[in-house]
């Protein structure tokens, strides 16, 4: 038998330790927590929060494939998310009816459209410089918002589209009580989305750990060297972009299922969705995938409880007008946090933890 290559040794090591490390149990525990949320915290607010954390963690992971694993910054990720949301909304609401088939087709069509657009944009921009991608996606994302807002007849304009869910996913559906909690269509939807997002997440993990994913990381770290090794960087980057964008579109479709409406600001917005996603990926850590869960958890929890925090601050310091102003402009705090994290913790929470663990085990 031939001696194993360093990569093979590394992989067999990884495979042996896969199911016994602490982080594996942490992941299982996290999944269990999300599964139990509707029973532990049955209030609408907490289930909604948990669902949004899951959805955004998936979206951030798909963004991370571009940013962290390929080294390409896209401002159009929110647009692909919106394509998914609008596609489902079109088929379920405006141009169709709520049915299981339409739901499935909505997501599939979104994936197809997203892959075509992603391929087109990457063909357009990567030929020149990778930074063109950021500028061009920003321009095209803004165009998408303008079109979604202005073409009122087609997209419902600023009001957006409301959708209702079919059969077991509809709000009126009920399965009776289980463990003291009423199982409604909403609970079923929660589990469907949790299942889908877990599947998407695992797919992305598989993607990044595949040989293809390793090539992408090589390109990210040193494009010239990867090219010299014979990899056609353009093709690999295009594949990664398309894959990430399709994942984002599917997540968008799931998002539309959960919130029940789409409009340009909440589903397409550069300053809303993109900003959140960027914050999440930076805080969680680029190139880690799991970091997205931490980032999404942090940002979404902060956003949800910020009004409470503001009230608390108001009662504690009723005369501090300045505090009130600052809390009203919480985005300012997020912006400062964003810059600080980029400067001082460019690896984010997850990356820093991994660095620390690696240093300790050595």
């Amino acid at each position, binding site marked *: 038998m031939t001696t194993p290559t360093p990569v093979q040794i590394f992989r067999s090591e990884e495979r042996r330790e896969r199911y016994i490390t602490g982080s594996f149990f942490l992941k299982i525990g996290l999944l269990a927590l999300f599964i139990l949320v509707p029973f532990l915290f049955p209030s609408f607010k907490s289930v909604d929060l948990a669902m949004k954390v899951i959805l955004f963690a998936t979206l951030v992971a798909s963004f991370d494939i571009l*940013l962290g694993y390929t*080294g390409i*910054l896209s401002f159009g990720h929110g647009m692909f998310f919106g394509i998914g949301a609008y596609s489902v909304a079109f088929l379920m609401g405006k141009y169709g009816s709520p049915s299981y088939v339409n739901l499935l087709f909505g997501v599939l069509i979104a994936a197809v459209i997203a892959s075509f657009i992603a391929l087109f944009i990457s063909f*357009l*921009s990567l*030929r*020149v410089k*990778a*930074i*063109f991608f*950021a*500028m*061009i996606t*920003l*321009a*095209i994302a*803004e*165009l998408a918002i*303008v*079109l979604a807002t*202005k*073409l009122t007849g087609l997209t419902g304009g600023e009001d957006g589209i409301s959708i209702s869910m079919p059969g077991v996913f509809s709000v009126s559906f009920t399965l009776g009580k289980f463990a003291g909690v009423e199982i409604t269509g909403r609970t079923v939807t929660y589990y469907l989305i949790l299942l889908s997002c877990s599947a998407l997440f695992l797919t992305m993990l598989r993607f990044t750990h595949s040989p293809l994913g390793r090539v992408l990381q090589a390109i990210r770290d040193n494009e010239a060297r990867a090219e010299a090794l014979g990899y056609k960087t353009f093709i690999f980057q295009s594949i990664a972009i398309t894959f990430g964008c399709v994942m984002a579109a599917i997540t968008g479709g799931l998002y539309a299922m959960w919130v029940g409406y789409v409009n340009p600001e909440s589903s397409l917005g*550069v*300053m809303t969705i993109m*900003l959140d996603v*960027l914050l999440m990926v*930076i805080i969680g850590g680029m190139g880690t995938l799991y970091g997205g869960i931490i980032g999404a958890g942090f940002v979404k929890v902060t956003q949800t409880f910020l009004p409470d925090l503001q009230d608390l601050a108001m009662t504690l310091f009723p005369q501090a007008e300045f505090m009130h*102003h*600052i809390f009203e*402009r919480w*985005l*300012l705090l*997020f*912006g*400062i946090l*964003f*810059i600080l994290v*980029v*400067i001082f913790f*460019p690896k984010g929470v997850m990356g820093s933890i991994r660095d620390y663990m690696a240093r300790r085990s050595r």
Partner: protein
Amino acid sequence: MEMNNDKAAMALKPAGHWERRLPLAIGMGLFLLPLLGIPVKTYLTLTIAGLAMGMLLFLVASGVSIIFGLMDVINFAHGALFTWGAYVGFSIFRLLNKWVDAESVLQNVGAFTIAVVAAMVVVAFLGVVLERVIVRRVYGSHLFQILITFGSTIVLVELIRVLWGPNDEVMPVPLRFQGNWDVMDVIVLRYPIVCILMGLAVYALIQLVLKRTKLGTIVRAGVEDLDMVQAMGHNIFLLLTGVFAVGAALAALGGLAMAMFTLQVYPDMGSTYLLFAFIVVIIGGLGSVTGSLVGALIVGLAYNYVAYLIPWAAAGVNILIMIVILLIRPTGLFPVGK
């Protein structure tokens, strides 16, 4: 090397070679095309408005372009600096409201000049802070530059909301800058003419500094090879900060002038015009000042014609032009250096 030889061969051809004139002629012809759908008088009015808008976009885009050319930094915070310029000018006009509303041309121009100087100085200072404190830490990494300047945009725009409030405001305009002239039955607004002249003056000034002064020579050399300039003993860090400040000041001028053009200021105005600026520099070629001017005029004119003919398509036409240019000529109309 082959590329260089090709370029040299191109340059050796006589300047009047028809092949080189053809794209220009086609381009010019395209801008006469809207005449089919627009009455001549409206066409002239639109052309003036388009040229004015183009000149204002040039002010923003040239900053983006020069900063990229020299520092290899894509400044996503340029839009926020643009907005800051508009708001500083807005405050000055509020302070000097007597001069703004006065009948005297001199006082009007005085108010305008003070506003321009104040906006440029304040925003240049912001630019210096931005470059020194934030951007300098991430030289060399495009990814982090974009991230960090995007973060700066959030902070700068939110600061505007804290300082000036989150609402749209009506931009005061000095009295004599308003109104119009009636030239042979064609309505010529005064302010767009001012914008066009201002843009041309700034272009001439930039070209003069770049081509005729020692500083300009250093900057142009820096665009080609920054390390070599440093090796020759020039303080490139001072140079970079200076260029960033100049770019910021140009953005401020553009912001102020654009706010007077559209008669409003609002905290998010920067993001819209930053996009225009990006489209302009992609069309014109990153790093080229002349490219910025040509790109800006193309974008300004096309936007105005299409906004008149098919209002909802106005936002798309520029992106369409950008895509076409990228397909034909990926490095833009006037590619530069590197």
